[in-house]
């Protein structure tokens, strides 16, 4: 089975001597000999949510014929969560430093500053104050 972990493709072979059974929906038992571990795993589309040994992991199932692809536009600033744009801190055409605030999105009572991932020039600001945004929407482009 192939997984996409971050940007890295990981191919996993069936481990020898390990058995896994479903104990309850989303709850599984892992056995190797007499060693036993309870873990949780839920699949949501291609995204796998795993709770293993006290830690949470999130990765994707890579289906046959699909390849790991870069999904983030290099200089695009994406909305990481749904929310409302409350302030624009940069103008189109402005030179910005890496880490400089570009705009502010308010969600869950918190103001979240979205910052430039690299230094460059703001080519486009695609939103205005008051806009509601959805995750993944490109809010600004920096190159």
């Amino acid at each position, binding site marked *: 089975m192939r997984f996409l972990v971050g940007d890295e493709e990981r191919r996993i072979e069936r481990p020898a001597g390990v058995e*896994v059974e479903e104990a309850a929906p989303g709850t599984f038992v892992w056995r190797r000999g007499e060693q036993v571990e309870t*873990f949780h795993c839920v699949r949501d589309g291609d995204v796998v949510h795993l709770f293993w040994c006290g830690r949470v992991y999130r990765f994707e199932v890579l289906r046959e014929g699909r390849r790991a692809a870069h999904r983030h536009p290099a200089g695009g600033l994406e909305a990481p969560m749904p929310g409302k744009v409350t302030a624009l801190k940069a103008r189109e055409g402005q030179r910005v430093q890496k880490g400089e605030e570009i705009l502010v999105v308010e969600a869950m009572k918190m103001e979240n500053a979205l910052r430039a991932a690299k230094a460059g020039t703001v080519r486009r600001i695609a939103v205005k104050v008051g806009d509601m945004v959805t995750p993944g929407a490109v809010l600004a482009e920096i190159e």
Partner: protein
Amino acid sequence: MAPPFRKLLIANRGEIAVRIARTCRAMGIPSVAVYSAADRNALHARSCDEAVAIGPAEAAGSYLNLEALLDAARRTGADAIHPGYGFLSQNGDFADAVRDAGLVFVGPPGDVHRRMGDKKGARRLMAAAGVPVLPGYDGDDQQDATLATQAARIGWPVMIKPSRGGGGKGMRVVHTAGEFPAALEASRREAQAAFGDDVIVLERCVERPRHVEVQVLADAGGQVLQLFERECSIQRRHQKVVEETPSPALDAAQRESLCAAGVAAARAAGYVNAGTVEFLLDPEGRFHFLEMNTRLQVEHAVTEAVTGLDLVRLQIEIAAGRPLPFGQDDLGASGHAFECRLYAEDPDQDDLPSPGRILLLCAPSGPGVRFDAGVETGSEVSVHYDPLLAKLVTWGRDRTEARQRMRAALRSTAALGVVTNLARLQAILEHPAFVEGRLHTQFIDEHLSELGADDTPPDEALAAAALALSRSPTRTTGPTPTADPWATLGAWRLV
């Protein structure tokens, strides 16, 4: 004794609404939940005997809507309203409106909220009552030149604070006289935008302070008691993350004078009901009044763990006019308790909120473990509200046992579907400085690089997932459309 109220409306949501409903059940008081359009099937809306829709998902039209809340109380015949924390819990106008509607507000009266919500006035009141305050300026002359002169007199670094407000909004630390004018202007602008008021208070900025606070209880007859202190130094962006009691920083003499100052502050405020007096503890061991929270705190559960009391029950009894059922000498604290706040936030992305659906929630349990959640498997974590999912509290004979129980409980708390701060909480509990009790409010920022977690799964974990996926069919999230049983079933027979 008969229940003190006919019916109690809980003007809140999430874990605190669920927690208040539990006490109502135990006391035999019927309870009423309120819910926004986003919360119709939320856990809190199913935890009471009745549930009333009060408005749209946006809190301004629902959980902050005074009229809708009072209407819901009238319609259901509730004679008391518990505001929880956040939302309208410290709003004096709401407390007054509840009273004017002939109902009982479970909390202090409106004028107490207003008195303590004004930092300038509260500082003067505390200083007059002999409660230590930081060197600072709380005068009415708010001219730029006066403030600059006062800042220089106080000594750098100076903290600029809006007199009204909270949550760190508008606060600025200024290190030199040259930075002061620009910082003052920014602080006033933010305060005006957030709170509609730009009055400023100046205080000496204490570097690497601890946050300690005293839980107080006051009844209508004027008895004021303290339920010991909590330390809440582990914070991020002015938001508490881990709390404990007792504070590992205090010796018996310091504890006694801190708790006495808490009682003096509550008396000076004319306080009634449960409240918290917050102090900064400087590296020299001196404490200074910070502010008073005129409501129940999220972290009240650690106090409950060491005292064995139910603070919500006591709040309700005080609101009903009953005297406190004990005196100061009857109260004691035993053992040690921690609280960890589980937030739907991504520590790897500067604590960005992470809304979404909880695909699976497994609560920890065991001796001395309490898990107060506002969500369960299937819950939607909405963008409209605070990202607190649950509070996890552990109690032990001493700090070591309570910490060991917390570590184990965190390792068996599974929340899948939204990104949470679980790994960061685990890292904090393991950190050597935390283990030794060397805490201060910049702890997380200072140790940030050591609190990161490797989120790359080991091969063994991926193999487990691969086997699990092959065992269980693909699950899709979201409601599954089901056929109408009234249409598909014939007559029923009980067998």
